[in-house]
């Protein structure tokens, strides 16, 4: 069973394959995303992140989840040589480069704690899979054509080890990721960068950081152990990491 709700201004989709897919499970996951949105949305006047930015609460007064996200952001900044930064050019905190993946990961952990084995959770094009799909096969995820927004698929990957897959891009809303090291960098060479990692939290934060590196991003992903990537430049030429092929041919290997 699959359900969709609009949360954080974006479609959040949950598909549960297991027979005992109760409505409560869906509700719990959607409620969790609403909770995250209420806390981390920079668009909401009364969110904790807005209150922090407006100095209505001090850093010492941060909630446990906010503290966790700030710590993870700091860690990610170090791991990416400064290319990931939650401090925007205008000096505000914006955790959106990491919170989506983090919350998808937490939401899928909720389902796992409830004993659900085969499912995926998607928020705005970032996906965490678990177990197998409805046909008992590895989850088949399409990478969206960045030149054609009707969700046309230009590449299929097969995920069988509970991976996460995240795509960063500038093609829908215009650039919303910036290069923290060079604010004048328009980041218009690469228009889409997909990262597959051991989970969606990992995939999302490194997709954000690698996208901020422009052309160098795919080389960064190549160097990261346990990650594979697929980047598309403005001419429609894709470049993939050396191990990315394993995800393309996975199904053929299994069913050959």
């Amino acid at each position, binding site marked *: 069973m699959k359900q969709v709700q609009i949360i954080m201004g974006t479609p959040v989709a949950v*598909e549960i394959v297991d027979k005992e897919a109760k409505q409560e499970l869906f509700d719990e996951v959607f409620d969790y995303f609403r909770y995250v949105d209420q806390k981390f949305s920079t668009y909401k006047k009364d969110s904790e992140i807005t209150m922090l930015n407006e100095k209505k609460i001090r850093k010492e007064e941060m909630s446990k989840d906010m503290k966790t996200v700030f710590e993870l952001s700091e860690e990610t900044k170090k791991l990416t040589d400064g290319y990931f930064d939650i401090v925007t050019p205008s000096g505000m905190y914006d955790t959106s480069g990491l919170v989506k993946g983090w919350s998808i990961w937490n939401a899928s952990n909720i389902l796992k704690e409830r004993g659900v084995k085969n499912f995926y959770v998607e928020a705005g094009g970032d996906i965490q899979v678990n177990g197998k799909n409805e046909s008992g096969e590895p989850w088949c995820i399409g990478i969206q054509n960045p030149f054609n927004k009707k969700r046309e698929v*230009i590449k299929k990957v097969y995920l069988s080890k509970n991976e996460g897959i995240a795509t960063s891009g500038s093609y829908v809303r215009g650039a919303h990721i910036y290069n923290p090291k060079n604010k004048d960098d328009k980041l218009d060479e690469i228009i889409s960068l*997909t990262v597959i990692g051991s989970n969606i939290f990992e995939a999302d934060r490194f997709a954000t950081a690698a996208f901020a590196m422009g052309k160098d991003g795919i080389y960064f992903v190549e160097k990261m152990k346990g990650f594979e990537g697929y980047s598309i430049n403005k001419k429609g030429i894709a470049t993939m990491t050396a191990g990315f092929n394993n995800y393309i041919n996975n199904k053929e290997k299994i069913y050959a």
Partner: protein
Amino acid sequence: MKKAFLSLALIFVFSAYVLYVRILGTDLPTVLTPEPNKTKTALSLPQYNGTTQTTSTNSVASSPSSPGTKPKPSPTPTPAPVINTGKYRNGSYVGNSVDAYYGNVQVKAVITGGRISDVQFLDYPQDRQNSVRINSRAMPYLISEAIAAQDSNVDAVSGASFTSAAYVESLSSALAQARI
């Protein structure tokens, strides 16, 4: 005299051709040539091993805020389908085509068991050229290819988030029709 003129003309044509080839010839490769060495030195990357576990999932607040914009009442109701277990009537509902500044966005909401089971794009702006220049030059170390459309027989699609006010507005108008 005739010979001299002919050879001069030949020389002129030949040098024009060389110039032409040179200009065209250098254009493509400079755009597509990556700088792998620069990449290697520019990024001093820390070794990353393993996964950070984040398990703080226990604090689920009870603050259900209504997401997105409020749906506007629609003057075009669709025939009422049968089973009602959620807050929407089952069926497919096409939302308004909403003007995003770069084109129109229109979605269709599919309601199953009274809830949204899918959202499909009917119209989406084509703000970039669809034509792709194919070039077989592979990047050093990494494989390159020209992207090409595949069939859409997939479980889910990964792409940059298509958050937009137009999207939410079109979907809201679709849901307004579905509302019981």
